[in-house]
């Protein structure tokens, strides 16, 4: 095929178009002006102007997680690139496919401390899956196509492409995606058959099995989630999900034990602790999930399925590690299970469910909604009830409200839950919701946030307004950095150092200033009506809900404690402190 010669910026846009990109989240500046000029001249690719580069990455994450596609970001050199770093790190931790195009000073100025020069590839090396600096025009098209391959295959992640201005302006040859093959990066997707057979033979001997599933199932796609559901129903094995995995298995299913981990359910954590065969599927034994490793699920044999070989045996040694894409492996597991006519010991499984039912009787997520003050959990529950018959996507910020949303909003489908799990980035919620709404213009998109988190990317209200994005932002306003306050109460003698939200703005006036609707609610009796009013408004809304300011998030496994030493709300009253020096040094 003859090479087509274009200017560098045209090559970039052509490559994006050929990769199926529909939208780019970005912010202009000197180094990327040639690209913006090219964007101006075309209408295949839509550009969404954010108000801060961190928000561009979170918006692209929301877009990517709610569609399964790659999210694309465009920022300028220097401060544009450094502002994107938090978002990139977030995407790396949560395995979100992102392409981030960064402007760079012209190649002959690199290294000279030129205006708005930053060593972008140096700065972003540890916070990307891979990064490139394009130094010659011949490499431009190839690099772009390779970057999409790297970002979206294997364990997905963010990829930065640093583009010096002279490369964008000069002539460059164009290659089609099909003309580019990657020399080194071709991850394995099929699991090893013998390992899968060993795993199924082990599962067939189990008396207390459990499936512990994470974000990898969602990244593998809707089909993988379906296979997971079928596999668990076929075998009768209980399922628990990580924070990142919510939606991979229907929350209403009777085999679902809820989320596990630090703020997971009693039944999920007890079952993890007491099980005899655990299958970890696309989950990485994060410290928020395992608690104290020395006491983590002591009596179980462990099988782990992951596309990333470095996730296997990282924190917890496993008996059988299967490297491959979750969807492919689940398919093979199902085939083997059926072919060998395996069955789990029905009597043992029945006993296991009886044990689980006893744990369930604790009703660990229950709360009482009094007449005078709104419980934050209640807001989540009511919102869930009121949106059941709508296509609804939820994003959150970070803190207690995030955990309450995870615990109380029942997710039935994958790709409907966006939260910052690995990095725990306050400021994620509103921009992520923007990205989701851009991808799904007709869906209901709700951002549950906190009074502190919402301030971290509040400037994005202008983006919501500009693009008429009807995102519903619900502030669970406890006038505290609630999660910080909770730890200070439990671990630091109730010394609430700097965790009170002083000088909060009037959120109704704030929304008004940005040109959309602000609502408040403080009487429990009004809650449903206000939520409904918000849902009915055709446009962005900020709803400021005054909630119980001293409510703590339970259950809780304090840092450094094993799963079976969970704190349940009713046992932990106002002044019950956690007595653990070890817990104090952990995060």
């Amino acid at each position, binding site marked *: 095929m003859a090479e087509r010669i274009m200017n560098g910026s045209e090559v970039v846009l052509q490559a994006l178009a050929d990769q199926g990109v529909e939208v780019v989240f970005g912010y202009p500046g000197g180094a990327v002006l040639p690209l913006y000029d090219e964007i101006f001249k075309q209408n295949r690719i839509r550009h969404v102007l954010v108000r801060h580069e961190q928000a561009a990455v979170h918006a692209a994450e929301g877009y990517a997680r709610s569609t399964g596609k790659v999210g694309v970001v465009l920022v300028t050199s220097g401060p544009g690139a450094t502002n994107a770093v938090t978002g990139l790190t977030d995407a790396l931790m949560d395995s979100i496919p992102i392409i981030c195009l960064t402007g760079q000073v012209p190649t002959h100025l690199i290294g000279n401390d030129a205006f708005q020069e930053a060593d972008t590839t140096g700065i972003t090396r540890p916070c990307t899956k891979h*990064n490139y600096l394009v*130094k010659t025009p011949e490499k431009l098209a190839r690099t772009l196509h390779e970057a999409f391959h790297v970002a979206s295959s294997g364990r997905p992640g963010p990829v930065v492409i640093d583009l010096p201005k002279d490369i964008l302006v000069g002539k460059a040859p164009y290659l089609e995606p099909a003309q580019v093959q990657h020399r080194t990066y071709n991850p394995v997707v099929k699991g090893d058959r013998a390992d899968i057979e060993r795993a199924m033979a082990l599962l067939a001997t189990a008396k207390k099995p459990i499936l512990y599933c994470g974000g990898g199932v969602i990244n593998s796609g809707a089909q993988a989630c379906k296979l997971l559901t079928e596999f668990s129903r076929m075998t009768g094995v209980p399922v628990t999900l990580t924070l990142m995995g919510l939606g991979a298995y229907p929350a209403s299913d009777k085999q679902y034990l809820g989320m596990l981990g630090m703020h997971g359910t009693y039944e999920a954590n007890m079952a993890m602790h007491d099980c005899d065969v655990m299958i970890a599927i696309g989950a990485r034994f994060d410290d928020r999930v395992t608690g104290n490793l020395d006491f983590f699920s002591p009596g179980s044999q462990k099988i782990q399925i992951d596309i990333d070989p470095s996730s296997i045996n*990282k924190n917890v040694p496993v008996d059988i590690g299967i490297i491959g894409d979750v969807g492919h492996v689940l398919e093979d597991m199902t085939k083997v299970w059926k072919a060998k006519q395996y069955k789990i010991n029905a009597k043992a499984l029945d006993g296991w469910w009886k044990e689980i039912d006893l744990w369930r009787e604790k009703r660990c997520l229950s709360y009482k909604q009094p007449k005078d003050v709104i419980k934050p959990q209640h807001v989540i529950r009511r919102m869930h009830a009121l949106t059941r018959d709508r296509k609804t996507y939820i994003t959150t910020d970070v803190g207690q409200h995030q955990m309450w949303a995870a615990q109380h909003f029942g997710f039935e489908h994958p790709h409907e839950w966006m939260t910052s799990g690995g990095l725990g980035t306050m400021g994620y919620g509103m921009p992520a919701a923007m990205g989701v709404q851009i991808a799904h213009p007709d869906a209901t998109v709700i951002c549950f946030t906190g009074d502190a988190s919402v301030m971290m990317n509040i400037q994005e209200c202008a983006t919501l307004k500009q693009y008429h994005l009807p995102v519903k932002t619900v502030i669970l306003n406890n006038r505290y950095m609630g999660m910080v306050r909770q730890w200070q109460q439990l671990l630091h003698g109730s010394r609430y150092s700097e965790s009170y939200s002083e000088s909060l703005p009037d959120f109704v006036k704030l929304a008004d200033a940005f040109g959309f609707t602000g609502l408040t609610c403080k009487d429990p009796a009004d809650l449903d009506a206000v939520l409904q009013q918000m849902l009915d408004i055709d446009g962005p809304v900020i709803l400021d809900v005054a909630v119980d300011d001293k409510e703590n998030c339970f259950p809780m496994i304090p840092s450094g404690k094993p799963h079976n030493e969970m704190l349940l709300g009713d046992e932990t009253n106002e002044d019950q402190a956690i007595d653990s020096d070890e817990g104090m040094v952990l995060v």
Partner: protein
Amino acid sequence: MKETEISKHTISVLVENESGVLARVIGLFSGRGYNIESLTVAEVDAVHHKSRITVVTSGTPMVIEQIKAQLSRLVPVHKVSDLTLSGPCVERELALVKVIATGEKRVESLRIADIFKARAVDATNNSFVYEIIGSTEKIDAFIKLMEPLGLSEISRTGVAAISRGTLTM
């Protein structure tokens, strides 16, 4: 081997010879808190632009497994091979050792160099530069003996290693 026992491993990494690849490998070790006892790198295939990095590191079996998995998932990495596990291998290092001395010490340093099969590659009236090739242990021993004899500067290449026999990466 016991799960908590720390052992030394020589790992060879075949990489694309592109800018930043060494920084990726070093950054991975420092960022994740792994040890580097020695590291060498040079292009080994000019036609296909491949370089070979040899790292000597130490850790528990789980950590060593992590190091290899983490290296393997770097995008420009072709192959990772644990020479310590894959069978017998040859490991060699080269050192240049400067000894400044006169009289009896000078003569004694020459005698020891002879025993170690080190060559004097530079000489003045009161100094020698010895070139010695061998295992890390042999070079360590040589340096130790030179210490009282006027040892004044050392430059070492770090370990290069390759499997014995027909086994290749």
